[in-house]
């Protein structure tokens, strides 16, 4: 089967996600990018699972999806909190603490 293609897709998605996390300033966009990374992982897991002919891959993927949802929930909450206090969701702005 097309293992490599899937893996390459996963790698690309992951890279895009990484780029987004590191480059986008909008907090929400950062969260989205993280989702991208996680989904890249999911693709890998599923593909490998099929490759090896075991289900653990899919199971793992399901766990990841579930957890990702929870994470994003928390993430959005925090961003919201920040927006309330600082009326900004630009991650570059938050550097009260440094050094």
């Amino acid at each position, binding site marked *: 089967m097309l293992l490599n293609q899937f*893996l390459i897709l*996963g790698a690309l998605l*992951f890279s895009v*996600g990484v780029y987004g*996390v590191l480059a986008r300033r909008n*907090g929400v966009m*950062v969260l989205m990018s*993280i989702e991208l*990374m*996680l989904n*890249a*992982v999911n693709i*890998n*897991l599923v*593909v*490998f*699972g099929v*490759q*090896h*002919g*075991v*289900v*653990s*891959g899919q*199971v*793992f993927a399901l*766990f*990841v999806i579930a*957890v990702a949802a*929870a*994470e994003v929930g*928390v*993430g959005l*909450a*925090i*961003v919201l*909190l*920040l927006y309330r*206090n*600082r009326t900004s969701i630009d*991650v570059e702005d*938050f*550097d*009260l*603490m*440094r*050094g």
Partner: protein
Amino acid sequence: MDVLLAFTRPSLDWHALAPELTLLAVGTLITLVDIIWDDRSKRAMPTLAGMGLLATLIPILTLAVDGTERSMFGGAYVVDDFSLVLKALFLISGYVVVLMSVDYIRDGDYYENEYYTLMLTSLLGMVMMSSSRDLISVFVALELLSIPAYMLAAWRKGGSRSNEAGLKYYLMGVFASAVMLYGMSLVYGLTGSTNFDTIAQELGSGPSNSIAILGILFVLIGFAFKVSAVPFHTWAPDTYEGAPTPVTAFLAVASKAAGMVALIQLVFVAFLGRDDVVQPFFWLISALTMTVGNLIALRQTNIVRLLAYSGIAQGGFMLVPFAVAADAPARAIEAVVIYLAIYAFMNLGAFTVVLAVARKTRSGEIDSYAGLFQYAPGLAVAMTIFLAALAGIPPAGGWFAKFGLFRALLDAGGGWAAALGVIVAVNTVIAFAYYARVLMQMWFQPAAEGDEQPIVVTGAIGAALTVTLLATMAFGVLPGLVGHFGEVSVLSALGG
């Protein structure tokens, strides 16, 4: 596809799961109580949480007495002495943190019940972590302990520092876990299994290919982030400074310990075959972490931030044994476990004193400790003992932890190990240089504008101090106690 259909209900060993279930129950109970008598219940919450934690220790004791090693879910979840020791450690440190939190949370305008619920949940994650022997369970446990921690870090809703702390912790956390997951996926892909033992066999036998290396590295990095190892430490200082002090203590001790536990299982069980990757990686990381942490700590003026960096450096010390993981596995595990145990108490103690002092001075600056010895000799002496322990000066506990490191290194022997040993020695000296700055303020300086009214130490904080102080001194004078735990944990961990 018949694979999917052939689902058989896994056999549950309730005794083995008793601790987790107890925690879960207490957590839920707190929420229920809150829902039912919301405000009137506030007073009871800390007690309830504390009781819950202590109650959780009971099944652990029974399991320890029973002593048989229990394994579930095809070896994904193991209850052995190693895990029990660490569960106990998590719970006790959690209890101390609760004691620390009581007044702090009560005085500020915080949600109390949720606070304790979340803390218990996070502890649940840790407790699970120490039993996980499978990529999936490790991942789940990690997230279970992290996600509540993200919220706790941002608990001071009003304070923008706290929010920022939360944000940084969260973003870095999920980013790191994404990286880790990617690594896990690669490892899984190579081995076709999520079970550590299988992974170990596959990786050990399998040829060295770059995918494996990539996978291993990414996984390790994910946890290196958790234990705030340089260069993945950057979140720690900011988060520590911003988060509520008890939470900081919690992060600095419990969650770091959890990361260490995960690393132990990964390195000593899953990746032991690939010491060609693991050992150099940790050599580098630990050396960097110690040195950078200590050096930056030299320049700190805020006590919490100072402790944050000192914590990073301590983490570096804890990582040292991993650098000889394959050469001297037993000694290495022992060293890490011992270090964790001692570190938990001495660091918690230090934070407790910070908390107590902050209640009067309302400041986190080191200068605000001037003349502490004059008006609060008790606290000053306690702080001195904790710092001495952190610096590794007998008879306070820390020396035995450091001793464990050297022991592991020299047991492994060889030039690299010796070199690392010397680096550790040098760092010990640097470390004392900044601990001494606090000591100097406390002992050598007169109190700021002669304000000499003594500090009120509330019951809870007093209790926390007593526990930590006793433990620290006991470990220093009779290291046999903690040494024993180290030993038992080793046998099982390597046995499994």
